[in-house]
């Protein structure tokens, strides 16, 4: 039997859907017995929500005030303290998991498999390298623990109709205090979360200014879509960094992706490869984005967007 521990990502109130993707990956391993661990402060509600996730055996809550801000150096030793019985330890390949999981792997004296995109068997996985320009199959040795991060865009959500057991795990070790949370600055937005939205509208440098980006937001709101941006638009200061889609930003897989005024640099395409339908709107008919778009429209975005918005409103 493969005993798999998944480290839940949450914001103190809700389980992040990246956790569901991890479960989705773990269930592809033969005879998987999956537990979720939640490190939290006052985590009873999150734990209850997690216990509904399908395919899992139990949820383990480590309730500790040191877990208020999910600091990797604080969480890692807690995971180690309960890791003995597990064959696999997985976390999401989000900034949370990327920060935490290698720290756990090093403490267990094993390498980590980053960005797992496919399970071949319990000891062999596929992952992208060179910004997704090559896919490598990695074999691990069966006698060691496997620590991995899960590429969330490669897996579907799992359902939540379960009622898994809930356990508490008490920590009796000293936790480090050398790393202290100060603040978190987030863009306030009521739009669907970029990473989980079924539809995403993204703008590029062609928008020309922060003010002009307003038309992207309006179109996104009309479509009930998340709003994203290319690295160029972020670097130009039109939008905050958390909106960046691409290899160094967020890797997403919405059903519909609208790339507006985005030329399609490799690093951007890496972030949207798993999207269902990609629509490109660009003035330059030679733009590389058209090479991978399912539907392309050559035109000036300042003409196209208002028209598109009006058409969609007409449909509704």
């Amino acid at each position, binding site marked *: 039997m493969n005993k798999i521990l998944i480290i839940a990502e949450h914001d103190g109130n809700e389980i992040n859907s990246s956790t569901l993707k991890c479960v989705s990956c773990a269930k592809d391993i033969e005879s998987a017995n999956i537990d979720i661990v939640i490190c939290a402060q006052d985590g009873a509600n999150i734990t209850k929500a997690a216990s509904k996730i399908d395919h899992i055996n139990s949820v383990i809550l480590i309730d500790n005030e040191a877990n208020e801000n999910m600091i990797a150096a604080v969480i890692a030793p807690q995971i180690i303290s309960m890791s003995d019985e597990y064959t696999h330890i997985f976390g999401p390949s989000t900034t949370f998991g*990327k920060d935490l999981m290698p*720290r756990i792997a090093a403490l267990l004296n094993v390498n980590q498999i*980053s960005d797992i995109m496919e399970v071949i068997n319990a000891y062999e996985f596929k992952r992208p*390298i060179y910004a997704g320009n090559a896919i*490598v199959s990695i074999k691990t040795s069966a006698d060691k623990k496997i620590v991995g991060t899960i590429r969330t865009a490669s897996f579907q959500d799992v359902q939540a109709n379960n009622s898994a057991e809930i356990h508490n795990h008490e920590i009796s070790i000293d936790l480090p205090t050398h790393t202290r*949370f100060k603040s978190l600055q987030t863009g306030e937005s009521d739009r669907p979360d970029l990473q989980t939205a079924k539809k995403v509208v993204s703008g590029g440098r062609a928008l020309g200014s922060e003010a002009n980006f307003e038309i992207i937001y309006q179109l996104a709101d009309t479509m009930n879509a998340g709003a994203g941006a290319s690295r160029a638009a972020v670097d130009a200061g039109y939008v905050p960094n958390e909106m960046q889609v691409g290899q*160094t930003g967020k890797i997403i897989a919405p059903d519909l992706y609208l790339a507006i005024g985005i030329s399609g640099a490799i690093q951007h395409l890496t972030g949207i490869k798993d999207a269902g339908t990609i629509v490109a709107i660009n003035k330059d008919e030679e733009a590389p984005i058209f090479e991978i778009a399912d539907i*392309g*429209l050559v035109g000036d975005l300042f003409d196209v967007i208002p028209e598109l918005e009006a058409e969609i409103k007409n449909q509704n």
Partner: protein
Amino acid sequence: MKKIIVGLKRVIDYNVRVRVKSDHSGVEKDGVKMSINPFDEIALEEALRIKEKGLADEIIVVSIGSDDCQQQLRTGLAMGADRAILVESSQELYPLTLSKVLHELVKDEQPMIVLLGKQAIDNDNNQVGQMLAALWDRPQATFASEININENTATVTREVDSGLETIEIDLPAVITADLRLNEPRYVKLPDIMKAKKKPLNKVSYDEIVNSNTSDLAPSLTESPPHREKGIMVESVPELVNELKNKGLL
């Protein structure tokens, strides 16, 4: 003396279109332009700026790999690093082993900060900084977009999925650089000449760490599935129609 160690990895230049070898044993590296991993270059730039503010005394660049890594170390010296260490190894080393090598160097040099790129653009692992911090039992501040050095602490702003997180860490510590930390300087010709005189110390990997923790083995490298070019539409109504037909509106 306040030292900063910066890791420089030799990787295929980011402008090169990477191709999978026809026998699937890896990617084509023969005759391909090699450069410093861009994130490492950002890390080095940041270290130099910290030194220029008078907050550090010496910048040491380290590379682990073949003798060819000297090129990247010389570039690092030309950018302004004070000395270089090449840990020579002919075999491909995995992040855990790389972290162990760096940890040994850290024990020797006792740096204030180890500044690394958040990931290398070849294997995209994003592991070494975190692993080194774990082995060293010190703080890690990954994906840094702003670093302020205080007396015995550093305040670091990190690019996280939900926005910008600011943390305070005790020094010594490991910090990994994200894209927007800075824009690295260009190297000028006189600096390249000067760099030739700066010390570059070679040590053998076997003398530092006695095992390569190679519990991972790549078995096959493939090209990614190709996304087919789709259709072009002429007008917005046509676009809306297509989306409706696909059930996306």
